[in-house]
C-alpha cells in the first residue's frame, strides 16, 4: 500500500455551549496540525446541531469536543445522538476539559472514544485522536 494514498486524519475541533475558554481548543488544533492532521476549528459557541453538521460536511474522522463549562453531560450526549441520526456513528468523539471521573466513565459508556483532562500533553491528545481515527477507518473498511 502506498503511503501517499492514505488521506491524512481529518479532525473537527469543536466548542459547544456558551463558555469562552478557547485556549485549549486552539493549542490542540495547532498541535494536531503540526502532527500531520487536517484540522477544522468551528469557533466558539456552536450548537450540537452545528457541530454534527460540520463533522459530516468535513467528512471528519474524529470530532474533538472542548468543554470547560461543566455542561458536558448536556451537550456531549446530544452531539453523539445527532451524529448517529446523520448516519455518522462511526465518527470518533474525543472530549477534553474539566470532566469529573464519574462523568468521564458515563460519557465513555455512551460512546465517547476518549476523555482527556487538564495536564494531558499534546502527544497524549494526538495519540487519542489517532486511535479514534484508526477505529473509524477499520470500522468503515
Amino acid at each position: 500500500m502506498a503511503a501517499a494514498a492514505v488521506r491524512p486524519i481529518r479532525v473537527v475541533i469543536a466548542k459547544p455551549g456558551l463558555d469562552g475558554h478557547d485556549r485549549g481548543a486552539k493549542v490542540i488544533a495547532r498541535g494536531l496540525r503540526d502532527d500531520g492532521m487536517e484540522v477544522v476549528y468551528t469557533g466558539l459557541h456552536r450548537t450540537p446541531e452545528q457541530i454534527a453538521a460540520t463533522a459530516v460536511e468535513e467528512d471528519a474522522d474524529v470530532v474533538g469536543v472542548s468543554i470547560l463549562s461543566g455542561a458536558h453531560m448536556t451537550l456531549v450526549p446530544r452531539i453523539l445522538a445527532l451524529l448517529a441520526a446523520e448516519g455518522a456513528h462511526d465518527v470518533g468523539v474525543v472530549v477534553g476539559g474539566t470532566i469529573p471521573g464519574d462523568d468521564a466513565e458515563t460519557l465513555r459508556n455512551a460512546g465517547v472514544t476518549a476523555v482527556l483532562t487538564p495536564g494531558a500533553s499534546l502527544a497524549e491528545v494526538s495519540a487519542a485522536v489517532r486511535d479514534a481515527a484508526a477505529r473509524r477507518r477499520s470500522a468503515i473498511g
Partner: protein
Amino acid sequence: MSGRPLPLDAARDGAERPGEFPYTRGPYPEMYRQRLWTMRMFAGFGAPEDTNRRFRALLEAGQTGLSTAFDMPALMGYDPDHPLSAGEVGREGVSVASAEDMERLYAGLDLGAVSTSMTISGPAPVALAMFVVAAERAGTERARLQGTLQTDILKEFIAQKEWLVPERPSMRLVGDLIAFCAAEMPLWHAVSVSGYHIREAGSTAAQELAFTIADGVAYAEEMVDRGFGPDQVLPRFSFFFNAQIDLFEEVAKLRAARRLWATLMRERFGARSERSLRLRAHVQTSGVSLTAQEPLLNVARTAVEALAAVLGGAQSLHTNAWDETLALPTEESARLALRTQQMLAFETGAAGVADPLGGSWLVERLTDELEAEARGYLDEIDRRGGMVQAVIDGYPQAEIAEAAYAFQQALDDGRRVMVGVNAFAAPDGDEPRIHRADPEVERRQVERVLALRAGRDAGDHAAALDAVRDACRGTDNVMPPLIAAADAGATLGELCDAFREVWGAYRDPGRW
C-alpha cells in the same frame, strides 16, 4: 515572632517614593499601613439565593467586599430559557435574568456600605441598570453605590470571548455607561480594565501588561472623543491583573503597569489629577497555574501568587481555591483561600511596608524591561490604527495564541516544570469531594423568567423596549431607557436582544 518595628522607607533624596508620580512604588504613600487591601472573593453559582448565602458566609468569615460571578447565559446575554442556555444555567456563576433576580442576589446586604463588584462586560449596561433598580427598590440611591463593573469589552474580544455585538457598537455602549456613571454614580468604577483573562488565555506577562494598558487607552480615547476632559472620567477607571506563579516578574509587572499608565495618561491626554494618574488594581491569583493533579498543591501556589500581588501593591485581591481546576469552589475551599489572604495580611509582615522590593536590583530591572517590552507593543498597536482596529484585525488574539502554544510545547518538552504534572508526578489519588451544580436550579430559573414575562404589563414593557432600541439607533445615552425597562420587567435576554437587533450579533471568526 520578633516584633521588630519595620523601617518606613529608605528612598534617597530625590528618588521616587510610594504615592508619588509615576506611582511605580504604589498609588498611595502609606499603602497597607493606612488601608489594607480589600479581600474580595469572586463568588457565584446556582440561583440568586444560593449566591446570596455564599456572600453572607464570606462576609461572616471576614471578607471585606463582594464580587459577583455570573453564569454563562448571563455573560452572553441570554435568558435561562434560551436554547443555548441548556445545561449552563447557574453552573459556572449565578443565574440572573431580571431586576428581581438582582434584588434576590443582594437581599439583606447594605449596598451603601459594602462595595460590590460585578464581573460582566457585554451585558454590563443591562446588569448596571438592573443593579440600580434593585438597590433603589431596597432604599440605596444610585449616587451612594460603590463598587466596580467590569465593562471591558475589548478583553472579551481578545481573550474571554463573552460578547454580544461587534466591536464598534460595543465601544459605544461602554462609552454610554462611563458617561452615565460620571454624571450619576460618583462612587462607582465604571470600567475594570482587565488583563486577567488575557493572561489566562496564554499571554506572557509583557503582553498582559501591554494589551491591558492599550485597552485602557482606547476607553480613554472614546471618552475624550465624546468631549469629556480626562480628569472627568479617568478617576473612575480601575484595573484587574493576574498574579501568576513567577514571583518577581509579577511584582515587577504591577509596578510597571502603574508607571506606564500614569506616564501615558499625562503624555497622551494631559491628565493632571492624581486620581486620574494613579492606577488602582484588583488582582486574582492564576487559574491556569493550578493543577488537577495533586490539587492540594494549589494551596501553596495560590499563597505565592497572593504574596506577589501584595508585594506588588494590589488594592484588592481574590485568591483561588485549591479545587477550582475541578469545579467551582466549595464553601470550605473558598474559606481556606480567604484565610490565605488573612495570614498574609496579619501574620507575615508583608503588609507593613509600601513597595518592600523597591530598590532590589532584580525587581527594578524587571520593571524596566517589562515597561520597555510593553511600550514596543503599544507602538505596534498605534501603527495598526489603535487598539479597537487591532482587535478587529485579530492582532492581540494572534500574539496570545502563539504564546499559549509555545507554553504548551515548553511544558511537553520539560523546559517548563509543573510539579505533579510533568515532574514529580504521583499516581492519581482519590477524587476529592467537589461542588456539584444543583440540576433543579435551571428548571426553577426558567419557571421564574416565564412567570415574570406572564405577569408584567405588556404595553409598558413593549414601550420600554422600543425606547431602548431608539436610543441604540440614535445618539441618546442608552442607560436611562435601560433602567426604565429593567424596572418595567424587561429581562436581560430581551434587552441584549434589543442590542443584537440594532447592531447584529457578533460571531466568532474562529481564527487559530
